[in-house]
């Protein structure tokens, strides 16, 4: 198979299948072929940070990697970005001139590493980085798990969020209200909300969640709304990421995992939403090695071989018709993480040519 070069390589996965490691290896391979690459990753395991020489202090900033242990000097330096949601929020606030954005208590909690806004913020960060940098290819490692759809869904959520009742409320408040200090807006907003007929709802909600929360939530809405340009600009990313001539989509799964149902579900959902093809990256394949092993029928070795072979074959059989191609990565046995990534990068280069 010959994998095309595109402006974006998106990695999705069912979680724990080596997705981040494969994305890193892909970025290294592309940089070694002379491409200017930005690798964006969210919450990688510590060993990957170690390989790339990243640490939590450098989160949110682009690290320029010229050489890697055991890999040596890269043909073109690799830019790597460890996502930091709070930093993204801060930058959004600066860009939109809404410094309260990073000070709002609700927004602050949401922007924590496990606060739940990572997917949306990743898209916004990507959009901001593309404005600054000049890249041949962005390798994007999406958050793990079947929840990756949230990531694709992120833009839809933004759209819905700004499309719905809130926009009506805010626009009906008019410019005057948006320019007054937030406290005035919040009480003004209450009046409008009363007018909009949701006063009952809010009073019930207030009883359950506390008065302070409803106020904080409304002011969170306000600062987010005032920073909406950043959110809305993120929408432009959707088209670019969905365009098959601009992006390769890789769905990563592992033979070990053998969860073809889950992989197919993801493929189906993504296909429905974006109507495009994707590659299946099959990690930790064993069948090439097992082929030449012929233990005696009835032995426990035979049972083990059958079981491992069947698992892998079933996975291939069920998934093949639904993907543009299957990209094989045999099980890497090196115990050193850098060796591991180096060998994966080598396999990528074989698939690319």
């Amino acid at each position, binding site marked *: 198979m010959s994998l095309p070069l595109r402006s974006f390589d998106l990695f999705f996965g069912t979680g724990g299948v080596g997705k981040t490691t494969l994305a890193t290896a892909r970025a290294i391979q592309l940089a070694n072929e002379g491409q200017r690459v930005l690798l964006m990753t969210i*919450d990688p395991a510590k060993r990957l940070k170690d390989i790339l020489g990243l640490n939590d202090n450098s989160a949110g900033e682009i690290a320029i990697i010229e050489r890697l242990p055991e890999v040596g000097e890269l043909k073109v330096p690799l830019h790597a970005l460890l996502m930091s949601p709070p930093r993204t929020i801060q930058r959004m606030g600066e860009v939109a001139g809404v410094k309260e954005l990073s000070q709002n208590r609700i927004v602050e909690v949401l922007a924590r590493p*496990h606060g739940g806004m990572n997917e949306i913020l990743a898209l916004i960060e990507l959009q901001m980085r593309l404005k600054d940098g000049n890249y041949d290819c962005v390798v994007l490692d999406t958050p793990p798990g079947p*929840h990756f759809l949230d990531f694709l869904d992120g833009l839809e959520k933004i759209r819905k969020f700004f499309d719905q009742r809130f926009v009506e409320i805010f626009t009906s408040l008019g410019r005057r209200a948006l320019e007054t200090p937030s406290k005035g807006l919040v009480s003004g907003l209450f009046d409008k909300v009363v007018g909009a007929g949701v006063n009952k709802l809010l009073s019930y909600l207030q009883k*359950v*969640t*506390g*008065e302070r929360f409803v106020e904080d939530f409304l002011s969170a809405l306000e600062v987010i709304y005032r920073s909406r340009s950043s959110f809305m600009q993120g929408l432009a990313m959707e088209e670019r990421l969905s365009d098959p001539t601009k992006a390769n989509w890789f769905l990563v799964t592992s033979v070990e995992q053998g969860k073809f149902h889950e992989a197919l579900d993801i493929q189906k959902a993504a296909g429905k939403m974006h109507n495009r093809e994707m590659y299946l990256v099959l990690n930790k394949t064993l069948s090439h090695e097992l082929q030449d092993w012929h233990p005696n029928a009835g032995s426990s*070795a035979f049972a083990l071989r059958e079981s491992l072979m069947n698992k892998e074959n079933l996975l291939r059989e069920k998934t093949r018709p639904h993907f543009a191609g299957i990209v094989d990565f045999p099980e890497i046995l090196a115990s050193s993480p850098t060796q591991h990534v180096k060998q994966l990068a080598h396999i990528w280069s074989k698939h690319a040519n």
Partner: protein
Amino acid sequence: MGESLKRLYIFTGKGGVGKTALSLAFTRWLQEQGHSATYLTLSQQALTDDTAHIDELPAGWEKVPHIHLELEAAAEGYITKKLGSALLAKWIVKTAFFRALVNMLPGFGYVISVGKILEMLHADPQLIIVLDAPASGHALTMMEATSNFREIFQSGLVFEDTEKMLAKLYDPQHTGVRIMTLPTTLAMQEALELKEAVHKLAPLNAKIYLNHSLKSWSEAIQDAPLALKEKLRLEAEVMELHSQDVAGRFAYSAHPDAAGMYQDLQAALGGLQ
């Protein structure tokens, strides 16, 4: 062993390590020991996604008592209790405002789900819940959500409830976190990172278990291709380095069916207590 049973077992770990099969097997084992146990999964998206995919139990496990917790139903139930009106609650969860709230604050859904789980445990003092939790990162989101929202709310009924919830959820006598992983260096390191993250959050001692162990297949692997021999060697290496961190090992099962798999796992399941 020697430890008393917990009320809530949170099974987590990276995807594809056999978390679902192990938590189902453990539930069945608890039942067979005469305990009242149920397997439980969550769906977070019910409120926002019309086509929410409801997971069915993998074939062969249907007899294990199981609950699929729907977020919308849990939210409705919670609000009903708090406001004393099912009609109001039904209306609230259907409003655009409430949906936007859950959309924007995904952790809110977890708080409701965790609250529901704790309520079930409170209502039935004999019940043990085995929660097949989302993969690593999302499990942390779930466990963190309650304290995050306690900070957000500061007052009101939910706030009072989150206080009580945290006392239970973070109580090591009540809650056990079980991290499933694979016998490789990298998977082990990830499990250790997760264990540390859980520990930072709460005084819970998360226990790590290796699944798909090849140790009991040593003999069969003697003449196997290099890849398998290496896997076996790497597993031994992991055990040498981390033996004190590993609470138990589950052998790779060559049985494709649930019954056969349960038979293979059975003897070691007590170690999950």
